[in-house]
């Protein structure tokens, strides 16, 4: 009898408070946050299966405001009449109005929310409202993923990176996106000393070298008369030594119209890399390359 009583108590004390039917969940895909007149403005892209027309997962965007993040999430829940479910949050978009104080509040919100993970991407965009309306499910994630992996033209930053860099008092780098005819990348934003600074073009690649985040990218060099040296950097690793920055690259020569030999190719590539990296660090830079391909033409 005692055992039965204990069993019943265990069952009823623990309860079924986490019980939720799928139909009662509002699955949030993307959140956009901006601050305006001491109020947070939240844009949310919510999975809406009632409007499923194509193969893509349809989403509907909502907009709510409030003085704190908890309040706006509650407001969103009230307007949707469903439980806000952020375990599968894909993307957080913030704009330049989110500074140190707000960032700390956002970090605290996600750290205190046991439902969310910290592996969703964080990006910067100054036109959140339109982006949220126009974007397709996971479109921005795929864009960033593809660019950072194949071209190293952006930096993939997750919430975990933001939290880590924030508490380590390091610079936070966020991919910047814009909406023209379609959604595209527009460099990255460096958050430092409560300010955002734009980094664009090739500088992003050298920043990636500095952060040891290079996956693969293509390097091109014009010699003369429309002749090109075209290299594919297959793999790269940056080691931070005491007085030195040691970079190792595995390079494949794709096009060698200029008919350079191996040493010449390495010299051109190293000079360019060293010059640009020296702008980012005072350390001595050593580059070791493994070059293979058609350089002996």
């Amino acid at each position, binding site marked *: 009898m005692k055992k039965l009583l204990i069993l019943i108590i265990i*069952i009823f004390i*623990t309860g*079924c408070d*986490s*019980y*939720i*039917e*799928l*139909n009662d*969940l509002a*699955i949030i*895909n993307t959140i956009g946050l901006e601050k305006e007149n001491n109020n947070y403005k939240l844009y949310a892209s919510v*999975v809406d*299966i*009632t409007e*499923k027309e194509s193969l893509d*997962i349809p989403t509907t965007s909502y907009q709510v405001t409030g003085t704190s993040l908890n309040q706006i999430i509650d407001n969103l829940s009230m307007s949707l009449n469903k439980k806000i*479910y952020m*375990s*599968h949050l*894909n993307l957080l978009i913030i704009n330049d109005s989110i500074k140190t104080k707000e960032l700390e509040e956002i970090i605290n919100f996600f750290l205190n929310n046991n*439902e969310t*993970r910290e592996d969703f991407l964080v990006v910067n965009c100054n036109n959140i409202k339109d982006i949220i309306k126009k974007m397709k499910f996971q479109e921005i994630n795929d864009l960033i993923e593809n660019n950072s992996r194949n071209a190293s033209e952006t930096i993939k930053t997750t919430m975990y990176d933001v939290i880590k860099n924030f508490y380590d008092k390091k610079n936070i780098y966020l991919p910047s996106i814009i909406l023209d005819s379609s959604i595209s990348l527009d460099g990255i934003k460096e958050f430092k000393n409560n300010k955002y600074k734009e980094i664009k073009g090739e500088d992003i690649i050298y920043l990636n070298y500095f952060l040891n985040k290079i996956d693969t990218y293509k390097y091109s060099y014009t010699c003369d008369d429309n002749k090109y040296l075209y290299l594919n950097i297959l793999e790269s690793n940056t080691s931070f030594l005491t007085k030195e920055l040691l970079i190792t690259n595995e390079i494949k020569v794709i096009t060698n119209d200029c008919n350079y030999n191996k040493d010449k190719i390495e010299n051109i590539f190293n000079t360019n890399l060293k010059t640009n990296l020296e702008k980012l660090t005072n350390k001595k830079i050593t580059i070791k390359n493994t070059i293979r391909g058609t350089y002996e033409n």
Partner: protein
Amino acid sequence: MDYIEKLKQESNNSDDYIYKEIKLNKNIVNTINIETITSSNDINDFILKRISILNKLNYPNLEEFFLNFLPSPNISKLKDYDELKTKLLNGYTIIIINKESILAVETRRDLTRGVAEANYEKTILGPKDAFIEHYNTNLGLIRRRIKNINLQVKTIDTGVYTKTKVGILYIKGIVKEDLVNKTYKKLQKINLDGIIDSNYLKRYLNSSKSLFPTLKGTERPDLASEALLEGKIIIVVDNSPEVLILPTFFIDFFHTSDDYYQKPINVTFIRIIRLLAFIIAIFFPALYVALTTHNPDSMPINLLISFKTQRMSVPFPAFVEAILMIIAFEILRESDIRIPSSMGTAISILGGLVLGDAAVNAGIVSPIMIIVVAISAISGLLVQAIEAINSIRWYRFLLIILASIFGYYGIFIGIIFILINLSDTKSEDKDYLYPFAPINLEEQKDGILKINTKGNKLRNPILSNNKVRGK
């Protein structure tokens, strides 16, 4: 009162009792037989024809004549009225000479079918014959495989009214004798009106409260012979086409007889599949309920959205939906077993169309739920014994309830409960989870894995003191 009058009175002059009185010179010979269970040809050939010869011979001692010259293979002298009744009811013809001396001649009619193919323990390779309802035939099927004087039988008649012959088979020198003695004592203690089938004995031979069966029945003589060689005992019951194997371990339900007729590596693969199917059968619906009601965060987003889309039109909670579908499946299964095979097609169409398609279109259940229940149900059928399949259903229900209350946490509670339950179970005082708990590395060669039997020279130490095979 003479024997015939007494018998007539006791049987209320039953119509199928045949009484015959023959006068031979100065002697009176009475024969009694029960028409329905005796062979009239045998009575004619073995008894009546001889009596007619006797009339001409004028033999002085009738009892001696019958005992020596009746051509029946089984003829005996009876001591009293009780013996007379037993023999009569067993298909013997009783001969009473001058109302004093009683003889019984075996004239039993063969009421059994011939040896046929196994019905529910089908195999691709290996022998196809199966036990039938005849005790001697069943014993014969085993003796034909084990031609050794050490294969011995202890017999006991059980059941107050049925007096069913129950035999304990074992191989002396391999089996542990105390197992035979204990089982014999248990059988002696049974006080029932009748034993109609070997399955009647299960509850008397087995004291375990576990939902999983701790006794395995088989209709295959090759499997029974294999068990005897392992040091197990076999219980053969007259009128039952299924013999019982004692003791039975959990892993035995994942072994089939053709595991021993195939390459070990293939057997290992299929055993892993069977174990996996067992796990799927128990956990799959519970996992679905936990995922959709407590732990959607552990699903990839695309799967989550797919589930959500499918469940959108379903008016029931996932738990109710799961229970409804499982009950529907159980109804279908039971009806499929009970109805004549000619109506099976109708049931298949109804089950397939109504449950498979119409229920989804009507928005009563989601397609994914049908997939989950179907996979779980089909997986459950891979386990060998019907009782094991039935026990799976209880664990399935238990886990669904736990999953709907606690989610994954509930499933873990269920896993711990099942493991405790299995670890606590004994089959004839032997650990049910053997050879995994307690672990025996030698026996792992024929547990889930099947490692080349050439090296598998040792017998199971908890079943036999004669540890080395081939001795």
